[in-house]
């Protein structure tokens, strides 16, 4: 579906003044190569500031790419502008973390869901109502909710409304950005199930972003791990969780507490030291070397490329496990 090559997003224009001051632009995304296959769910994990949302927004052409090329089903979309770009937006949707912030409190649920239909002129008059009702039913909410206001709903119901809005213009691709993070744990299972059903029913492709590796494991076909604007490992889900090759992936997995007091207390584990470096001052070489137990002289000076180590398993590390 997507084929991104050397995608780079910079958050500061390289103006003359900044160049004279010796400032380099802050890079949110550093030359990322990524492919998303039609019909798959690609999980995207990493800590805050690692570039997960920036990658999603770059794929949807919300963030401007400073360099790189992006193909959507073989068609170049890197520099699309105007009407073709708006037509593209219908096909690519995004759902956000905060179901309170992403619904206009003064707009009825039905009106919010109808908005993309009106903007893209996909339906008029009665047909709008029918499509809104159909979208609500698809996410397990009664059609009569269309007349109500967002404040009448709980967080879980609001997130369903946001999904209904994304579905309403029949997209091919949905980027789910931390969509479960604001929900209570006992509701997360239901929401995962709903997303799975919708995908099968409508033939969707997902990019599923989360900092919670337990959730990503349950929904993704493949998982990409990001660190400071780069993908450091990408593998089919079972392989990534069973045999993480990058020391950072291994540390992330080790940091997840298991619901078993006996095993948990017997487990000897050294917490990874330090925190994600600032993207304004990235360390030389591999961005992870300052925290890495396996770092060598080469890691301190040279950036390891994302290389294939097994079928479908890529890792950017000079000393993979």
């Amino acid at each position, binding site marked *: 579906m997507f084929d991104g090559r050397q995608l780079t997003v910079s958050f500061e224009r390289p103006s003359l003044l900044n160049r004279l001051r010796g400032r380099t632009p802050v890079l949110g995304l550093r030359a990322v190569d990524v492919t998303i296959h039609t019909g798959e769910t690609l999980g995207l994990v990493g*800590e*805050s500031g690692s570039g997960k949302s920036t990658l999603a927004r770059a794929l949807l052409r919300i963030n401007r790419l400073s360099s790189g090329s992006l193909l959507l089903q073989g068609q170049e979309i890197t520099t699309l502008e105007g009407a073709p770009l708006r037509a593209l937006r219908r096909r690519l949707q995004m759902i956000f973390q905060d179901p309170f912030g992403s619904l206009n409190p003064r707009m009825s649920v039905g009106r919010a869901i109808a908005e993309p239909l009106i903007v893209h002129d996909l339906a008029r008059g009665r047909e709008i109502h029918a499509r809104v009702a159909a979208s609500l039913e698809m996410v397990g909410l009664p059609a009569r909710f269309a007349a109500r206001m967002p404040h009448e709903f*709980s967080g*879980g*119901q609001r997130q369903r409304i946001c999904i209904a809005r994304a579905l309403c213009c029949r997209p091919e691709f949905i980027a789910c950005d931390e969509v479960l993070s604001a929900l*209570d*744990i*006992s*509701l*997360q*299972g*239901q929401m995962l*199930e709903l997303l799975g059903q919708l995908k099968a029913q409508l033939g969707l492709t997902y990019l599923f972003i989360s*900092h919670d*590796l*337990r959730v990503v*494991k*349950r929904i993704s076909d493949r998982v990409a791990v990001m660190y400071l604007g780069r993908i450091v490992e990408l593998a089919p889900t079972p392989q990534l969780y069973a045999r993480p090759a990058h020391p950072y992936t291994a*540390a*992330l997995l*080790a*940091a*997840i*507490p*298991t*619901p*078993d*007091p*006996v095993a*948990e*207390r017997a487990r000897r*584990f050294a*917490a*990874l*030291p330090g*925190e*994600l470096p600032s993207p304004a001052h990235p360390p030389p070489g591999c961005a992870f070397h300052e925290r890495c137990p396996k770092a060598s002289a080469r890691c301190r000076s040279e950036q390891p490329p994302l290389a294939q180590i097994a079928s479908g398993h890529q890792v950017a590390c000079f000393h993979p496990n």
Partner: protein
Amino acid sequence: MNEPLLSVESLSVTFATRHGSHTAVSDVSFALSAGETLGVVGESGSGKSLTMLSLLQLLPNGARAQATRARLGEYDLLDLPRSDLDRIRGREIAIVFQDPLTALNPVVSIGRQIIEVLRHHFKLDKAQARIRAIELLARVGISDPVLRLRQYPHEFSGGMRQRVTIAMALAGEPRILIADEPTTALDVTVQAQIVSLIAGLLEHTRMGVIWVTHDLALLARIADRVMVMFAGRIMESASCEELFARPQHPYTRALLANLRESAAAPGATADPAPQGCPFSTRCAWVMDTCRARMPPVGRAAHGGQVACWALNP
């Protein structure tokens, strides 16, 4: 076991609203002994934080706490004169909050904020307090504490800020530490660091700890006992080992099933029943009795306690 440090019986918190009073916490009882870590797990709105805030009289405006008993040593926590309250806060019970950025004053250096706490609680001159502050920063794993003392909160990363608030909580040498979701705002690898730090600090003290979280799995490593709350009530409590090995309440089972990925979470959501068990709208075992009356907290098969009509008819 000897006399508990803290004992709370039948605590309730009610909010006065325009539409009458709303009960956010009801009939919560628990005890904490010296050196013990009590884990309190619940979702947002389960009343876990309100329960803890009520012990320090930190409830928001319009909220009122009542209890048949809320004792810490010789103090009655819900009926304290102002002078005793100042002594309790920080010296007897200290609290670490979720968001370290709002817990720290952005325009005062880290050093001054810690020294202020130290000089409030102990008779120390500035130089002595400064030395003590440096020791505290070193104890929570902050490197170069002499330099860091002069810096401001914005110069610290999220994990380092949380270390500072932990140092401030320890400054009063409290008998009880309440950790209210201290790792929730942090990244996974930093969360692991902070959990290890607090676990390490506890090895050398007799401090009682109440760790409030929405992540049941986190408690497996650190808690001695676990109390499960839902909609302002205790659903189940037991020793940590027993709770994870033999969860009784259907809500606890659902939480664990979700963590172990063995089953989907409970059914459709709805507003909690006005009377009756608040979990009845999601429960797989629901009976008519559950919708009519709240089950009392009774003895459970694992030696702990559980509030469920299906288990304690």
